[in-house]
């Protein structure tokens, strides 16, 4: 920060050190992803014995066709399931969260802060400690091993409500709501056509967070589902991985399947950088 002339070389050194450390850290995080990319393109022989960073034994097409062919393309059924759980779950969750966050922000009612404290308690509840009870409950209600068993818990994210309240306070000025009321709009209509529109960045952020959380969730589907047709990607890949010990032919399928599974999320994160950063910031500041 100080740039006296005598310290130029010193500064150059510091600059190298700072960026060097950052570069090493970035290599650490990127290396396994690069490995995944090259490994996914290899046949089983080269995956087990070949050089990692070459595309030696390049056979991505073959791996993809294997993936498609195995059990009538069950992999893509899992893909569809993941999209379904994460897409519908995240959409429902963000709607519900934004509505609640808006209500917490814009309305005054008795017991509001107590109720909000309950929501915050929910944030701190370890989700896996919840998964087993959810399973036992699903057994009791006969919803175990159905789409609902995974979908319903996915609709709830107390942290989404917390974020939504912050976003609502930041994005929706009270005056606009007042104006809508004077124009004669009812409260829910105001929320739907004014509040929700204005808080859209928050909505997208909650959606993105929840989508990732559901896409990445493993424990809940693991306990809930036994029918392979209902599996999301993570559970399906786990299943194949368990087979790979006995049959190495599964290795390329696991690796290529993993690459396809992470691709949409990586793209989403690169494209929507602004939003996830906004979400992290809203969650951590103030």
């Amino acid at each position, binding site marked *: 920060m100080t740039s006296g002339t005598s310290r130029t070389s010193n500064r150059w050194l510091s600059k190298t050190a700072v960026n060097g450390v950052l570069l090493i850290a970035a290599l650490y*995080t990127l290396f396994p992803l690069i490995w995944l990319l090259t490994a996914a393109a290899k046949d089983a022989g080269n995956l087990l014995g070949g050089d990692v960073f070459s595309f030696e034994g390049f056979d991505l097409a073959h791996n993809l066709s294997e993936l498609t062919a195995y059990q009538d393309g069950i992999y893509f059924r899992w893909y569809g399931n993941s999209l379904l759980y994460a897409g519908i779950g995240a959409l429902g969750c963000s709607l519900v969260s934004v509505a609640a966050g808006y209500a917490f922000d814009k309305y005054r009612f008795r017991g509001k802060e107590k109720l909000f404290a309950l929501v915050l308690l929910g944030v701190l509840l370890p989700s896996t400690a919840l998964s087993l009870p959810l399973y*036992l409950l699903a057994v009791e209600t006969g919803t175990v091993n159905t789409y609902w068993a995974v979908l319903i818990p996915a609709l709830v994210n107390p942290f989404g409500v917390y974020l939504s309240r912050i976003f609502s306070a930041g994005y929706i000025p009270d005056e606009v709501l007042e104006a809508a009321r004077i124009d004669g709009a009812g*409260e829910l209509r105001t929320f739907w056509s004014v509040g929700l529109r204005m808080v859209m960045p928050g909505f997208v952020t909650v959606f993105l967070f929840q989508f990732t959380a559901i896409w990445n969730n493993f424990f809940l589907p693991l306990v809930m589902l036994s029918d392979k047709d209902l599996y999301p990607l993570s559970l399906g890949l786990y299943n194949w991985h368990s087979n790979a010990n006995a049959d190495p032919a599964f290795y390329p399928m696991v690796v290529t399947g993993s690459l396809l599974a992470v691709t949409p999320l990586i793209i989403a994160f690169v494209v929507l950088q602004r939003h996830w950063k906004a979400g992290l910031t809203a969650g951590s500041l103030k």
Partner: protein
Amino acid sequence: MNDKADPVRGTPDPATGTPGPAHATPGPATSPPGPAHGTSGPATSTPDPARGNDSRRPAKALSTRARTRLAAGALLTPFFVLFTVAMIVPVVYALWLSLFTEKQSGLGFDGPRTVFDGLGNYAAALGDQAFRDGFWVLLGYCAFYIPLMGGGAIVLALLLDTTLARARRFFQLALFLPHAIPGLIAALIWIYLYTPQLSPVVAAMEAGGIGFDFFSSAGTLPSIVNIALWEWLGYNVVIFYAALQAVDRSLLEAATVDGAGNWRIAFSIKLPLIRSSLVMVLLFTIIGSLQLFTEPLILSRGSGSAVTSTWTPNMYAYSAAFERNDYGLAAAASVLIALVAAVLSFAVTRFTHRKEARS
């Protein structure tokens, strides 16, 4: 949503009549919509003029208050219904289940019976060496993981925040990307990278004369810490960096003018100012650590792995439910894990001068 809007909007206060009952609708803010929908029928016709005359207060103010009350209820209900179904009920159900156990009847003719057992399951879990060992494993894991994660993330965020750093957006994205990888797949990738026949890492280490078995009993913990670190490091860096960016720049300039160096500024000004972020990350890291499951589960499936099926408390609960079919014990273990999380969260927030629930 739009369909719902109309009936509710059609029932401003006249439905509830005089101000008395309207105020009496009690504490839980979730309750209004229930009754509100019930009463919405009769009130659908012209709201204000109907009662306008006989109400003692100005009708408009009154109706606004009831209207907002209904609206708040309608907006909160979906969340709290789901919250109840997916969080509160399971917790209560787990507490209930944890009090019962299955006993074989005398000669085994009738099959198992479910009997009330008080705190028996808790005693059984706590009395089980395997369960207690799980917490020791977690403690060891945290001893490695938390300093590495916290220290690493803070250092990287501070470096990013200096004027010396280049290509900040690239670094943020590069560091953050692992967070987009599902935990299961992250674990798979790393386990392949740990496997001698598959891994360039192991080969490189052997070429450098370092023989390290990631699956041995000594290697297990570092193996898992590394996976978790890889997944979460960038996420926390971005949180810290965002917080640092919000620090008032004029404050830093003033410190520079006063002769403070970069180190001094980092430790005496920046870090104290982002304390609430530090606390939040610590909190989520602890809660996350208690849930350790996916990575060791996958490691445990490898041949020759030192990870047992009850290695962490979560794995213990899982195996109690699915390998031993002892739901009472599984529920008790889950409750105990949640309880530990609650106590630790409370301790952390308490210890670091509790911050107000913001907003």
